[in-house]
């Protein structure tokens, strides 16, 4: 998951706590093993190695592809799990180097969900294209882990994988869980702790945060997030630094947050139009430019 993962339980004894944390760890590792793009033995790596031949997906992978397709349609093509290949052109380490237009032009033909052939349960990934489930997997893992823990124990539980979290319900005495959302301050350098925190009371549902935190790119005085526009090959401009959304499930919250960031300047307005409970940090006030 590449981030600290924790489970908070209330009222469980040591034995149950160990059992539940074991379940959580097992589920997180299981999802990572299947869908991590960094692992050569993952399912995703197998799809890439199929050289365009149809691969039969299991039920869970099929459902993940289904929701990726749905979001691709709902976002008019902005949400695209095939945009991962554009990583080769962009180094999101705060550097000033913009890639050559030719570099982007060479990569764009390899991007586009429509180019995949998805006919459940068969998936064909053309040679050179990649499927990246990073924008879904962590939040999905939170929801699955929470469901498993609820089956194992009736105690109030909060599952938090690197800031994407979900709760089973209010705490034992009916109290909400107190969750702090850290807002990045403009002067914060990577590694320096944030100074501002909003604390909210969560009784049910989930929170997910999508943001550029330390992965951003500065060019010509403008700061771009690490969310790439699959149609232009450039990062989305004008998006807020971080967006936190509350929703009944972590997957829904995460998708809303990502879809919001894809709106760039209109992120906050979009979230308001959706009626989503959200917190935005450092909305960008600079003028946008075309292209």
């Amino acid at each position, binding site marked *: 998951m590449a981030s600290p993962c924790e489970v908070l339980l209330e009222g469980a004894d040591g034995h149950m706590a160990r059992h539940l944390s074991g379940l959580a760890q097992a589920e997180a590792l299981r999802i990572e093993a299947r869908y991590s793009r960094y692992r050569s033995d993952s399912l995703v790596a197998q799809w890439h190695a199929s050289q365009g031949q149809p691969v039969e997906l299991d039920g869970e992978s099929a459902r993940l592809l289904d929701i990726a397709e749905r979001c691709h349609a709902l976002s008019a093509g902005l949400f695209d799990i095939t945009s991962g290949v554009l990583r080769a052109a962009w180094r999101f380490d705060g550097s000033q180097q913009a890639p050559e237009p030719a570099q982007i032009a060479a990569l764009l033909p390899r991007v586009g969900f429509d180019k995949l052939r998805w006919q459940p349960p068969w998936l064909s990934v053309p040679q050179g294209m990649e499927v990246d489930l990073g924008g879904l997997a962590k939040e999905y893992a939170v929801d699955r882990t929470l469901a498993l823990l609820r089956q194992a124990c009736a105690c109030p539980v909060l599952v938090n994988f690197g800031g994407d979290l979900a709760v089973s319900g209010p705490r034992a005495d009916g109290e909400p869980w*107190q969750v*702090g959302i*850290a807002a990045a301050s403009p002067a914060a350098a990577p590694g320096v*702790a944030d100074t501002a*925190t909003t604390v909210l009371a969560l009784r049910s549902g989930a929170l997910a945060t999508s943001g550029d935190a330390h992965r951003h790119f500065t060019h010509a005085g403008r700061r771009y997030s690490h969310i790439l526009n699959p149609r232009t090959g450039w990062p989305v401009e004008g998006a807020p630094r971080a967006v936190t959304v509350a929703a009944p499930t972590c997957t829904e919250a995460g998708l809303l947050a990502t879809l919001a960031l894809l709106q760039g300047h209109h992120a906050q307005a979009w979230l308001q139009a959706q009626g989503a409970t959200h917190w935005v940090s450092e909305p960008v006030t600079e003028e946008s430019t075309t292209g």
Partner: protein
Amino acid sequence: MNLFRRLALAAGACLLLAPISGCVTWGVQPWERDLLAKPAMQLSGSMPLEGAIDDHIYFSKEAATGGRGYGGGGCGCN
């Protein structure tokens, strides 16, 4: 009284300036606030009304007032 007051002010100044000057590092990380979050550890107590009522009793029986803050609404009792 004068010495007392000077000492109290000096102690207060040290407390105020030390963290800013960086010579002493006090404070906790956000994940170390478990005890501080308890109602019993709030400066106004787990029952804020208790403090307000106390302040009112002593306001009407003694000449000295103030300290924690100021309540809403005076009374004619002093």
